[in-house]
């Protein structure tokens, strides 16, 4: 059973960004985590030990489960980052490798 997506009770100015190559419509002022949640995207990354899917948990910057790569920078807390027009967001698979 596919879970139903959240509903918006109001609308703001539209901001678009991309997640894994697909365009996501968000509202100005909301976090990347909220925008992805609104778009029905639940899994943001795979956990570092067992590769299990993880998504939002606390929405307040405490749990670090919502880590995504934003504009090439990994380990960004999606719930603490406001959407910007043209952001390039990608999932994280496991622990981030340090590029030489």
């Amino acid at each position, binding site marked *: *059973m*596919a*879970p*139903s997506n*959240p*509903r*918006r*009770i*109001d609308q*703001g100015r539209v901001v678009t960004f991309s997640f894994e190559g697909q365009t996501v419509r968000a*509202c100005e*002022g*909301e*976090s990347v985590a*909220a*925008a992805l*949640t*609104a778009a029905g995207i*639940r*899994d*943001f990354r795979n*956990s*570092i*030990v*067992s590769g*299990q*899917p*993880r*998504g*939002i*948990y*606390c*929405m*307040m*910057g*405490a*749990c*670090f*489960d919502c*880590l995504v790569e934003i504009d090439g920078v990994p*380990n960004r807390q999606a*719930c*603490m980052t*406001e959407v910007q027009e043209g952001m390039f967001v990608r999932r994280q698979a496991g622990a981030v490798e340090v590029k030489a």
Partner: protein
Amino acid sequence: MNTEIVDLLIVGAGPAGMAAAVEAAKAGLSVAVLDEQPRPGGQIYRNVETAGATRDKVLGPEYVAGRSLADSFRQSGVRYMPGALVWNIGTDMMVDYSLGGHSSQIQAANVLAATGALERPVPMPGWTLPGVTTVGALQILLKSAGLVQPDAVLVGSGPLLWLVAQQMVAAGMPPKAIVENTPRGRVLEALKYVPRALRARSYLLKGLAMIRRVRRAGVPIYRHATALRVEGKDRAEALRFRAGGKLHRIESGNIALHQGVIPNQQITRLLRAEHFWDEAQKCFRPKLDDDGQSTAKGLYVAGDGGGITGAASAALEGRLVALGIAGRMGHPVAADRIARLRVVLARDAAVRPLLETLYAPAPEILSPADDVTICRCEEITAGTIRETVRLGAPGPNQVKSLLRTGMGPCQGRVCGLAVSCLIAETRKQSPQVTDYYRIRPPLKPLPLTELAAFEPAPDTPEVIEK
């Protein structure tokens, strides 16, 4: 390079931080307020400045009341630095912070940690699946983005659970079910605190009204639930539990957990302030004197970070701490006003023993089964922690060294209390003895490039007189 100097540096722009800033500025202190969020309000008044009419109606008058505090804060003339992450504080109250990808320092004479509360961990099978969040997260989705989940199941206990349920009803999307896990007998246990709670009866009346509104909306409510588990392969699909002598399964992709909130200890632990285990609140609290000062000289605490007392008390505590500091720094403050604030604060606290008793965490949550993940970051189970303690690990820091619990990016914000309680249970001791993780800087992960570019002031030989 000259380091900025302030009389009072406040970490956190929630009710305690905002109220303290307003009072401190009025009293003549130089004040800096650093907060990670882009706008003031903390969690309880999150986004209150830009909420809009629809959210105001859904979130209710108490939320909206935070707007005037935010306005006063904006007009107070303090140096407000949104988006600033405090990542270290020295014993001399030198504060290291990151803003816009760049780290700097402020030398404070006094620091007020007003960083509020965190959700108590609610470990159960399946709690790490996507789709499982805290109840607080649902409220933040509502406050910060106007989003409501249509099939949410709220699980656990506490006033926040009922408040969010009511807010969802007001938004036209009531929860699919409420599964309360308050053990039987709690109401009886809590009855003796009712007379005291009547001194703050507005809380009780509001609480009962919330519950009534949720019931009237026809939300199914299950009580005294046990054997809670979330089912699902790659995402939450259902909640299973036992209630009323029957087994239940509720299908849902959105399961929200709550077992109360606990003080955020990151800053007080960083500065090695003394804490005590509060058996009534079932959490650690920093030892504070009458002025709100911790045992770390110069570090003050106001709001939920000192012990869970709610938004109204948070603002009162913030004001009292600020006035006290101002007075001791030689600025004139009105003694009768301070006395009045203390009276209101005492009255506001009258409801706490009732709530603490009624909504104390359930035994099943404090003592999860062996296969339940406790440290979400490093994926360590309760059984592994218990085994390690039985093999001789005496406390949370040794368990951390051996298993990596608490070494993940959350630095114990989620697992800390659960790990301490598990160790205490296995060693058959009070958590007061077990204590908690040692917290080290940086308080949140920083890019190495930023640290490399950071130019801290050379160690100052003199400490600023208070």
